[in-house]
């Protein structure tokens, strides 16, 4: 009888302690959860707000074709710059009346490259990278690979540049 009583008593104390623990954990989880909700409700709009222009420039990179109405008047052996999506690009009218177009962004550290007519090459002034004027392939210097090339179509005096 006596032993039984003690047992019950101990049991009771145990459950009390257990309740207390779970209550404390519950409060912790509750506060943590509510805190997270607040952090999200404040953090998410701020993130979207700050990210707005990124989303916009992502939109512009989706461009797959650019029409250049007066590019056909480009002289032989000359180049012009234009914007393809959000990036600078280059159209070259070669001396043999062929055309090339490529992204004008150096594959080394993203400087904008230039066409050098005398040497008939594409040159990057930042660290002296050199690319082939016809294909955009890396020739010498630091660039690890060639420039991204585009397709060029000339029709009725209009030049259309599109993604490969």
């Amino acid at each position: 009888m006596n032993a039984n009583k003690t047992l019950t008593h101990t049991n009771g104390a145990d459950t009390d302690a257990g309740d207390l623990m779970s209550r404390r954990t519950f409060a912790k989880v509750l506060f943590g959860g509510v805190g997270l909700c607040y952090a999200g409700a404040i953090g998410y709009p701020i993130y979207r707000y700050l990210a707005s222009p990124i989303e916009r420039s992502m939109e512009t990179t989706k461009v797959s074709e650019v029409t250049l109405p007066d590019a056909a008047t480009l002289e032989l052996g000359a180049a012009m710059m234009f914007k393809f999506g959000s990036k600078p690009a280059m159209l070259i009218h070669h001396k043999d009346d062929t055309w090339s177009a490529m992204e004008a962004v150096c594959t080394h550290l993203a400087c904008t490259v230039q066409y050098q007519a005398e040497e008939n090459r594409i040159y990057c002034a930042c660290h002296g990278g050199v690319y082939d004027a016809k294909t955009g392939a890396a020739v010498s210097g630091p660039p690890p690979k060639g420039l991204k090339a585009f397709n060029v179509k000339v029709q009725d005096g209009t030049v259309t540049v599109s993604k490969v």
Partner: protein
Amino acid sequence: MAKLIASLYGWVDSRLGLEEMLKFAKKKTVPVHKHSFWYYWGGISLFFFIVQAFTGVLLLVYYRPGPDAYESVRQITYEIHFGWLIRSAHSWSANLMVASVFIHMFSVYFMKAYRAPREFGWWSGMLLLIITLLFGFSGYLLPMDELAYFATKVGLEIPNALPIIGEPMTNLFRGGLEVGELTVQRFFALHVVVMPALFLPILVFHLWLVQKHGNATIPSEAEKPKSEQKSIPFFPNFLMKDLAMWLIALNVMALFASLFPWDLGEVADPLKPAPTGIHPEWYFMSAFQVLKIMGSVFPGALGEGLGITIFTLGLVLWTLIPLYDGKHEKGRRARNATYFGLLALAILVITTIWGYMVL
């Protein structure tokens, strides 16, 4: 691990005196009595200021002063994700901040917390109130919509009416004879650089004083024997309650900002007549109405001059009240100060309501 943290703490403590700071933070107590509720309003004002600084910096990411001002606020409101919410939060919190600062000031006044040794707390608080109002005035022009344009145009007529220095000073602030893109540009500089640079050191001084002297108890409470006066430590007990209030303030502000998004009017056009019912922000309504009344009683510049003089005189008396009622005594002076406070409050409330009624 615990040992490592303890020794790291010891290292930092011996160099920065963290224990000393903690002792300073724990020193202050907050009296507990039936008017304790009013002790929260300084903290609430501080909270809204923090919201202002935070949302203000976010607005700075896209806002462009000068000729582009309206267009940039239009983009923030209609094109940038959640831009309307950031702008609405900044505007709502600005109004709530002005309201809290006013409530804080009047509660301090009626609790007679400006009495010795807290005079500098009162004076620095008055400066904070004035800068808060100037924050509001300079910020209001920045979107450059019709309302902003006319509110600023009219508002600047007030300093313009001051004798001798009025005109040249107003022209300097306006950046010319008319409100335009140059005005926006310099109000912008005032709003985001000059005012915060003035506000912050005064705020630190103000808070340091409160910490140093603790909250004043009300006179009726101070008469009781020390053993019957109850108080709780500021740190951490009252701070926890303060934070709970901040949470409420945040929720109220967020509710207003999202349910009643701040409006953007038509672009300001100097050739268009002012829209009917144009009026200043509510916290300038009283001054606006007093000037109007004075102007209708006394013709021309005399009325305006009288209005400004009365307001300035009232403000000076209000600021100097600790010098008149600075001792912890009951009596005629204490009662007069209370009556003066009630009178000021009544005039503010009545002229504000009057101003809205005759719109």
